[in-house]
């Protein structure tokens, strides 16, 4: 892959903006609520702006790795600070920027322990940015863990519904995943004989097939936990339900993508033969996830559980796309990561608003919310339409690309997936009908609808969702610049 050095450290700025914000917050007092929010918003805003910049400024004709920064870090172990942008991580950086910016806005009304909340949230998002831009496995893993651990505290303190259980379960599951990732990564590191953590250099090494097979399955399962690959998904709905709104947004929207991105970036990239060997197995797990997520989601009465299980099935689509190993499949998978991220963020953001007022997420209890909060309901319904794969929304294209190539590669699983998605869509509409168009619950009649300011983050999310629904070529064209060489290199 050709590398083009950055003239200005855009990526480092994107990465460090939340860190600087976090450091400023450390020296503020809890009473300075407005200042705390503004600092977080500015920090998130800078990252958001820079992520848009890299997305737009990435030169598609030039291709390769751009905005590269490379600093030797620990010579003794061959660790380099190596960040860059290419077609497949540019959308995900953008996604992270969108979700953290709208996440800070969504949490504007937070009352308890505001300072600590934003400190941990900014720490988390630093990790996420870091994972998406790192091309050195040491930093990749370092940021990966930074992104995972603050979740424990975020859920524990600001969460709801069985939060103590959920926080511990989530953390232990994800750390167990890390327990598999470490041996996988180190196995590749030490058997390469290069003594470097640089992924591009390791890609050039032809690992023995058995090493690839072993390392791949370790990495697949380890990262798969975070990507909520069936049957390691059980932490995810519980965790999403318990987490506070913006954390659910970040978690379902971005964090789960770390897992699938890492499978693509590390596992498939470094162990192509391992991937060939396990592709069937991967497809099987992904297919099971899609079907399982849809049907379990149908039985839920808690809105957040519905979304949680739909995430499992949507992440299954990402996994299925990856498992096909075709250009369209990978393209669709990356696109789906982006589309699902924006969509779920909107979902949780909408539910969060309703829940903050009504203190319930029970579908039957909510009844006809659209008569009480038409705007808030509209946000949810838009997300639901996107989730159901309605044309004109970003995920329509993504799912289409994945499913078309899945039917070619795994006919039975592909058709099953399509069938269950159709059924899922049908029932999603039933959920919308029950929650928003039944008789309104008089208990909630006095609540106000979303104010324009609080509506802003949701509008941003919808804007991106529809923009990429109408102009999918912007996204697909970009992703393709890295997927095509990726497949050729495998």
């Amino acid at each position, binding site marked *: 892959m050709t590398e083009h050095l950055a003239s200005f450290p855009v990526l480092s700025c994107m990465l460090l903006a939340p860190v600087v914000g976090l450091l400023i917050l450390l020296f503020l007092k809890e009473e300075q609520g407005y200042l705390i929010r503004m600092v977080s918003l500015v920090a998130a805003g800078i990252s958001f702006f820079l992520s848009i910049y890299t997305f737009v400024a990435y030169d598609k004709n030039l291709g390769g790795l751009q905005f590269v920064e490379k600093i030797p870090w620990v010579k003794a172990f061959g660790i380099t600070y190596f960040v860059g942008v290419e077609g497949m991580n540019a959308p995900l950086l953008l996604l992270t920027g969108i979700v953290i910016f709208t996440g800070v806005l969504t949490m504007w009304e937070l009352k308890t322990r505001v300072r600590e909340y934003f400190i941990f949230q900014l720490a988390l998002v630093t990790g996420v940015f870091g994972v998406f831009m790192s091309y050195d496995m040491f930093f990749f893993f370092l940021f990966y863990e930074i992104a995972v651990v603050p979740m424990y505290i975020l859920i524990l303190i600001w969460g709801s519904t069985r939060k103590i259980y959920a926080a511990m379960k989530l953390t232990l599951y994800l750390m167990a995943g890390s327990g598999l990732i470490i041996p996988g990564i180190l196995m590749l*590191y030490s058997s390469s004989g290069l003594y470097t953590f640089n992924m591009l250099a390791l890609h050039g090494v032809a690992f023995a097939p058995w090493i690839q097979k072993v390392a791949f399955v370790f990495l697949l399962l380890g990262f798969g936990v975070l990507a909520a690959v069936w049957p390691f998904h059980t932490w995810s709905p519980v965790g999403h339900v318990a987490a506070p709104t913006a954390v659910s947004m970040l978690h379902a929207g971005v964090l789960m993508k770390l897992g699938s991105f890492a499978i693509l970036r590390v596992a498939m990239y470094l162990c192509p033969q391992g991937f060939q060997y396990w592709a069937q197995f991967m497809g099987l797990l992904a297919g099971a996830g899609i079907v399982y997520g849809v049907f379990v989601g149908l039985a839920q009465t808690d809105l957040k559980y519905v979304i949680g299980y739909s995430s499992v099935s949507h992440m299954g689509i990402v996994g299925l796309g990856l498992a096909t190993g075709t250009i369209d499949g990978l393209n669709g998978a990356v696109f789906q990561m982006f589309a699902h991220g924006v969509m779920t963020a909107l979902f949780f953001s909408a539910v969060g608003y309703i829940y903050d007022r009504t203190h319930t997420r029970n579908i039957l209890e909510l009844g006809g919310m659209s008569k009480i909060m038409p705007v808030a309901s509209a946000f949810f319904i838009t997300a639901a339409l996107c989730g159901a794969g309605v044309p004109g929304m970003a995920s329509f294209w993504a799912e289409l690309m994945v499913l078309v190539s899945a039917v070619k590669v795994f006919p039975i699983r592909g058709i099953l997936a399509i069938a269950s998605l159709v059924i899922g869509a049908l029932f999603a509409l039933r959920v919308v009908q029950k929650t928003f168009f039944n008789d309104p619950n008089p208990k909630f009649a006095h609540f106000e609808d979303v104010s324009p300011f609080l509506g802003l983050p949701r509008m941003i999310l919808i804007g991106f969702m529809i923009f990429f629904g109408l102009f999918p070529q912007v996204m697909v064209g970009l992703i393709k610049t890295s997927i095509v060489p990726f497949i050729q290199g495998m």
Partner: protein
Amino acid sequence: MMLFGPELYYLGLAFIIFLMTLRRTPRVERDYNLTAVLAGVGVLVSLLCLCQNGELFYKAYRVDLFSQIFKAALALGLFLVIMISRNIAHIEERFRAEFYLFLTTCTLGMMMLTSSVELLTIYVSLELSSYSLYILVPLRRGDGIDVEAGIKYLFIGAVSSGFMLFGLSYIFGAAHSTYLADIMKAMPQMLHSPIGLVGLILAMAGFFFKLSVFPFHFWAPDVYQGGANQVVAFIATASKAVAVALILRLAALGVGLGYNFAQVLMVLSIISMTLGNLVAIIQRDFKRMLAYSSIAHAGYVLMGIVGLQEAGFASAVYYALAYLIMNFTVFMVLSEVASDGRDLKIAELAGLWRRSPLLSMSLILGIFALAGVPPSIGFTGKLFLFTSAMNSGYFWLVLIGAVNGTLSLYYYLKVVYAAYFMESDLPPIQLSLSTRLLNYALCAVILVFGVAPNSIIELARAAVKTVI
């Protein structure tokens, strides 16, 4: 003079404190301030002597980068422990000067240990440091639990010393020399007889005891719980670091022994970390939990030694230094919260986030560092250990280590849970300025050297070159 600088300084310091102990009426405040300042100067002295190089006492005593790094670490450990000893509620005022005295002699003994390259010198220095600790542990004013801890510590210490002497006699008998350099040359000839292996493993027992490696770990929980918080902080930090140093020195002898020797270390490592982590899960007393976590950490450190290669040794040095800092951070929080000197239950950390945000920040950083969560020295150190073990081909060891990392997270998170989530209506904790500064400094060290470990790891590599 400069070669023996730190030792001479601490000998002098011990003498000054000895004079303090002679007074009939203790002057607690003045003694404390003087000791703290002198201990601080001691850190500077050790740092000034960092680049000394040479041999003393008929080559029984080698001053090199390796020993000087650990001397600096020990001086730092003593200084830090004295920093948190302003009000040691559980040690009577008339024994305060003795408390400082024995801490200082223990530091002196351990400093001499790091430089000893001759078996008898090693043994004598070891006993100097151990006897000081045997006295320090039961110094606590308590209801008998201190005596139990003291006796356990003494007995298990004596037994492991016995093992060690036995091992040393084997080595001496086989190699006809007490100098490590000569023994190293003679080692290849012992390759085919078990005497070298058995002798070496037994000789290391004395330091396995200090590091609380299985099967010499039994003292740890009781001593941690029974000793005064500050004494335990010293045992858990400085004493561990020096144990790593000496295990490295002795393990270097085993390079020629190769496979069998490494297998023994590997088994000890696996048992230590698994046992430590599993038992720590059910602990309710904070210090007891830390004791079991120290057993687990001893297992992690051995991972770096198993490979018997330079990179692994350097990782072990890095981890020993990192462990000193992160474990001390936790002990500092512990002794500030339990300012009346009681044993702290984990649940008693409740409401810490409100009572003292600064302490709770230090606690979370220290605990996360122990758990190996980035970006902390604990994470980086652990990853280096894993990397070097993997480079030597110990795949299963790394896998078990990684699984252990997950296990340990459970009980570390329980501490975070108590400190950040549980509520209590206790009043805020007032911290003195020096404690506040100490908090900031420790947090900064944990983060900065976790993210940018290069300088330390290069230093450690340069240091272990003289050992292996």
